[in-house]
């Protein structure tokens, strides 16, 4: 594995953790999370990365999602919440 792959792996792992941390406090939708992460350059990532990350976390059952209709003019939003498994994973991340 070359350095770029390695760096990319680390960033992905950090992103996982950040997302789980945020969602623990309350449900977030995609754009909120991206905006929040943007404040910290080390984890800032573009939509194409983040939304696929969500999909992976969903498949691994660390988070669950539900669509919520928004007020007029705003698009429906997919909110993500932490599952039991996600809470455990977050704790494992913390300790490690």
């Amino acid at each position, binding site marked *: 594995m070359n350095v770029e792959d390695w760096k*990319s792996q680390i960033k*992905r792992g950090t*992103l996982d953790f950040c997302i789980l941390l945020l969602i623990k406090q309350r449900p977030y939708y995609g754009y909120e999370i991206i905006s929040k992460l943007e404040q910290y350059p080390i984890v800032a990532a*573009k*939509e*194409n*990365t983040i939304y*696929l990350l969500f999909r992976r976390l969903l498949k691994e059952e660390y988070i669950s999602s539900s669509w919520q209709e928004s007020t007029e003019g705003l*698009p429906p939003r997919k909110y993500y919440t932490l599952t039991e498994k996600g809470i455990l994973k977050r704790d494992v991340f913390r300790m490690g």
Partner: protein
Amino acid sequence: MDKVMNDYLIKIEKYLKSMSDSERIDIEKEIKSVMLELQNNSVFSEQIIERLGNPKELAKAYLGEAISKNSKFSWRKFGAIFAFCSSFAGINGMLLLPFISTLSIALMIGGVITPIGGIVKFVGYLMGYDIAGVTIEMGAFTPSPMQFLPISIVIGVLMFWLGKVLWKLNIKYIHAISQKKKTV
């Protein structure tokens, strides 16, 4: 939703055709929602599609994710692998992947048929028939129906197991390709 964004959505739709309807609709709903959200925050359409990335790359990642989400077998997944290969996999993938997935299925099917053949031959033997067509010749040795039964079971299990292993390898390879070139 202007022309730039609509064109983007149409492109994605094209690449995701082999997905199950519910999954594809969910992905499109998600992408539309992202676009509208960004638009509401005064981001220009050109910037929006830049942030989403090349539609082919995005679709490749989504499709790869959907295929490699588990290594269960389904005919739909088999079809999706072919679609993935024709759009995304490059020369290696286009030759190798469809071949390996077809081979893995053939092995799994063969792995089931072989012991069935062994059982049929054995039952025929018990009833006094010799079903000549069903057997294996190993060099100069041709097993009797009684010997053939355990042999066919062993061979069947091995074939099935090999088929499964190949199928899982296939899925892993697709997962790896779909992750490549992702800019984090």
